[in-house]
């Protein structure tokens, strides 16, 4: 160490108190999140577990489970791991105790607020971004507190150079901030409701840019950072390869951002974006496996310890699951595979091999390693931890296997067309009843996994009781405490590796998205630059690595470069859609502006979380067109804030459900789905028949939508109420013919109005202002007619 000739020594005491609190929060929210998972898995198999109670219904609890598991459980794990390891890796105490505590309590308050609002049906209707806008603001504030606390700690560090774990933490902090803000641009209409700035396809693209990269930069990069600290610590082995760290870090953060559109394969998303999403997912395979290799090969020479050390067992299995999930991911991102897997349980299984296998096991390893050290004692029962490991393993395998079987079955059954040109399984429920046993098996697997985590909770509790909090410290030389010398921004950017990377990205983009001569010339330049860069690197490789080592001593340039790397992909994908011309002819019909009552119904649809089980996007496959009608196009959702394309079909697609069934059908179906659809697993919604729809709030909602460019007429409050009443009465009068008495202001009436207009498109858009650029390259299409008759075929 360079500071060996120091004159004096200073003892620096780490802030381990806040780490302890984050760790306990991790265990607590882990139990809550997983329990919620078991409950909703039960509801999917046994609808009775919804208890006919609004706040206990799947559509509201599912967001609670995902948010608790991701942001509460893994969130607290990240903060515990980052704060513990960063202090030691840069040999200084966290910059501010105050900020650390604001961070801790702020985050817990956010979680509690989420746990209250989601069951109440207060939601933004976007997956993993459901929390309402006041909570969004709190999240941003607390994330900034975290960022300030972290970067301030780097600024006062006593270690010149940044270790690879820190790189991943930096990438996490800057990217999550960018994604979160981008996907939460919205205009409030009340204290608990808002509309996203973007609609339809734009909203879809921004959502999955965010959603996919929440997986990348919340569930992956911080955990890789944690892996890089805790695995070599626990194995007492050096990290396998520094240069692999460098290569896989930069390729991972750069490529990940581009892969979001693979969540929208075979939808109305313009083809060029779908193709980008697919190829970047494929290119993500090796960078992801770079992380797995560095984790697993670090264990080389320590494999024998796996037999006795539960910590290493969890780490080895966790990293292996990471490798499996990141192999499966690119596979599922291939268009034709996605045609089968999308909207099915396969995706659910894929996610859980990541969250249960990678996140929960890495968390368990970290917790078992940390708790004895933070409380100055030994783990109460390594044997119990060992049992936890095997129980968890059995649970995961049951879970994933069940989802593979049911997912592939669903995909094949629902797409199957017979030789006679008709659906092999015209009744959607065939697929539900066929895969029902797998849902039970998933429930069992999940419950077993949860019980393993309960053992962890008990083990942690006993371990803590057997010790007491200890605070670690480190001695640093006074001279080391001086500001580490680094590199200015200019030196960081004006450098061969950066310039080559920039040119390659620039020419690659111009080649891929440019036209004619621009494209051809760019391709030549791309190949040339790549060759020159390779030759240059082999000549002056040492100088480049020297530059990189200097960069590692400069946290600001490093963070800026990371930010640049993660900004590019999103910018190239999203900006063209935002600024594209808005008036292009579409031939599949245009969405019409909602009537006030339909809008009120749409709010019910979103609030109840219908989108977690029903898509509104028919894919261009024969089976889907036969079953549901013509495939979805951009112009079908131009006014939809948020978009409701969905990501899972536990029930059938609803894009064109309007007019398919009489009002009475919907009425009875929502009261008890099994009266109209025997075998359905959908919950009953009795409260929709009691509660009044929010007609009064419509004025403000319509006003905000008008501002956003939706061509609503300029209604007065009285007109809105009058129209709601008029349309509501039409429905109630229709229902009265069958002897049903109900007030027109009930939620069910609004919902029926909304459902009945789904798929009722207009030939021309209303007015010139459509309010969004819906046109990608795929916007210009040849005139093909709408196969409505096909739809009717599937409706028999």
């Amino acid at each position, binding site marked *: 160490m360079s500071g060996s000739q120091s004159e004096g020594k200073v003892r620096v005491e780490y802030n381990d108190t806040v780490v302890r609190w984050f760790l306990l929060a991790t265990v607590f929210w882990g139990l809550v999140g997983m329990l919620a998972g078991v409950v909703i898995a039960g509801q999917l198999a046994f609808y009775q577990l919804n208890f006919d109670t609004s706040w206990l219904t799947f559509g509201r609890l599912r967001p609670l489970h995902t948010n608790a598991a991701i942001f509460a459980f893994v969130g607290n794990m990240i903060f515990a791991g980052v704060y513990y390891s960063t202090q030691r890796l840069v040999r200084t105490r966290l910059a501010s105790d105050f900020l650390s505590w604001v961070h801790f309590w702020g985050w817990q308050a956010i979680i509690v607020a989420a746990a209250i609002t989601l069951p109440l049906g207060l939601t933004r209707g976007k997956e993993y971004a459901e929390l309402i806008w006041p909570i969004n603001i709190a999240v941003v504030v607390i994330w900034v507190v975290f960022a300030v606390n972290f970067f301030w700690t780097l600024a006062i560090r006593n270690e010149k150079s940044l270790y690879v774990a820190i790189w991943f933490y930096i990438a996490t902090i800057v990217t999550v901030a960018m994604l979160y803000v981008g996907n939460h641009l919205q205009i409030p209409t009340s204290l608990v409701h808002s509309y996203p700035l973007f609609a339809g396809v734009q909203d879809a693209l921004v959502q999955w840019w965010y959603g996919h990269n929440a997986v990348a930069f919340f569930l992956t990069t911080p955990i890789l950072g944690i892996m890089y600290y805790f695995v070599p610590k626990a194995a007492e082995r050096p990290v396998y390869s520094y240069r692999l760290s460098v290569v896989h870090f930069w390729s991972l953060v750069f490529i990940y951002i581009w892969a979001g559109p693979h969540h929208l394969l075979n939808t109305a998303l313009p083809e060029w974006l779908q193709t980008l999403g697919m190829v970047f997912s494929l290119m993500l395979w090796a960078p992801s496996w770079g992380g797995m290799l560095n984790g697993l090969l670090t264990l080389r020479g320590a494999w024998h310890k796996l037999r006795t050390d539960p910590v290493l067992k969890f780490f080895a299995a966790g990293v292996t699951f990471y490798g499996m999930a990141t192999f499966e991911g690119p596979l599922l991102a291939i268009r034709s595979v996605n045609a089968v897997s999308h909207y099915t349980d396969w995706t659910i299984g894929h996610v859980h091999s990541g969250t249960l296998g990678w996140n929960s096991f890495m968390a368990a390893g970290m917790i078992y390693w940390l708790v004895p050290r933070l409380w100055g004692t030994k783990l109460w029962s390594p044997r119990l931890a060992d049992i936890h490991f095997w129980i968890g393993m059995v649970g995961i395998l049951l879970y994933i296997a069940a989802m593979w079987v049911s997912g592939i079955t669903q995909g094949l059954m629902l797409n199957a067309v017979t030789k006679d*040109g008709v659906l092999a399984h015209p009744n959607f429920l065939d697929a539900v009843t066929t895969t029902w046993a797998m849902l039970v098996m998933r429930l069992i697997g999940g419950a077993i996994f949860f019980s393993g985590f309960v053992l962890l909770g008990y083990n942690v509790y006993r371990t803590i009781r057997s010790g007491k909090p200890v605070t670690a410290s480190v001695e640093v030389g006074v001279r080391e405490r001086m500001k580490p010398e680094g590199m200015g921004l200019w030196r960081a950017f004006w450098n061969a590796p950066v310039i080559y990377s920039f040119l390659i990205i620039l020419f690659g983009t111009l080649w891929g998205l440019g036209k004619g001569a621009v494209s051809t010339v760019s391709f030549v330049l791309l190949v040339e630059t790549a060759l020159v860069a390779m030759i240059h690197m082999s000549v002056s490789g040492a100088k480049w690595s020297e530059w990189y080592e200097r960069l590692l001593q400069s946290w600001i340039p490093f963070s800026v470069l990371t930010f640049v790397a993660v900004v590019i992909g999103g910018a190239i994908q999203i900006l063209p859609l935002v600024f594209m011309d808005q008036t292009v002819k579409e031939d599949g019909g245009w969405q019409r502006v909602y009537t006030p009552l339909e809008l009120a119904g749409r709010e019910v649809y979103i609030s109840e979380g219908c989108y977690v089980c029903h898509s509104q996007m028919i894919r261009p496959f024969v089976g889907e067109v036969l079953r549901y009608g013509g495939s979805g196009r951009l112009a079908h959702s131009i006014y939809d804030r948020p978009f409701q394309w969905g990501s899972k079909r536990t029930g059938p697609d609803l894009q064109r459900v309007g007019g398919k069934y009489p009002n009475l059908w919907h009425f009875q179906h929502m009261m008890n789905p099994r009266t109209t659809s025997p075998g359905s697993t959908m919950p009953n919604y009795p409260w929709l028949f009691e509660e009044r729809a929010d007609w009064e709030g419509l004025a403000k909602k319509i006003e905000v939508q008008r501002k956003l460019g939706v061509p609503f007429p300029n209604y007065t409050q009285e007109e809105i109420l009058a129209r709601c009443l008029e349309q509501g009465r039409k429905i109630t009068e229709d229902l009265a013919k069958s002897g049903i008495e109900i007030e027109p202001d009930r939620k069910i009436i609004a919902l029926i109005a909304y459902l009945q207009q789904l798929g009722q498109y207009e030939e021309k858009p209303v007015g010139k202002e459509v309010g969004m650029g819906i046109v990608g390259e795929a916007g210009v299409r040849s005139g093909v007619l709408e196969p409505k008759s096909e739809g009717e075929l599937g409706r028999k």
Partner: protein
Amino acid sequence: MRSEMSKYEANEEKELRPHSYDGILEFDKRLPNWWLFTLYATVIFSVGYWAYYHWTGHMEDGWVRVKSELEAVRLAALSQGAPPDDQQLWNFSRDAKIVSAGEKTFRATCAACHGENLQGGIGPNLTDGQWIHGGRPMDLFHTVVNGVAEKGMPTWGPVLGQQRIAEVVAFIISKNPTMEKPPGGGDVVQ
């Protein structure tokens, strides 16, 4: 720090980077070849995939693609004995693949009597809007299937089968200026 390193074998020691973070050391091993190969292979595949599908415009819009797939399924269903209808035959006539298949059959089987350009010869003209045995798509279909014995039109049903006959009819409709609108005269669909 040297003492930490001595735990590792002598040849491994050379590969260690000269810096420890909280006791964590790093090797600087070469990237595994198979890993590098995977990285390069996916990049090269991606460039090629993009070039083939996007750059050269091979990627058909799903909206367009599914329509012709659907017609193909319908067509195949005919060979299973499912009868076509007016609308379906007309839909076929707007599908380039089906029409060109029909054209092939026409040239091989029908052109001898009805002319290369459907202008007629031994048999009547098929483009003049005059239909002796009915001008709806299904009329044409039945005429080909059953033939018109008294006029010398053979019975093609058992020879060509429903599918190829539907293709031929689609071809004839596509060549017929009087049949640009779908049957029934109204809007096709919508």
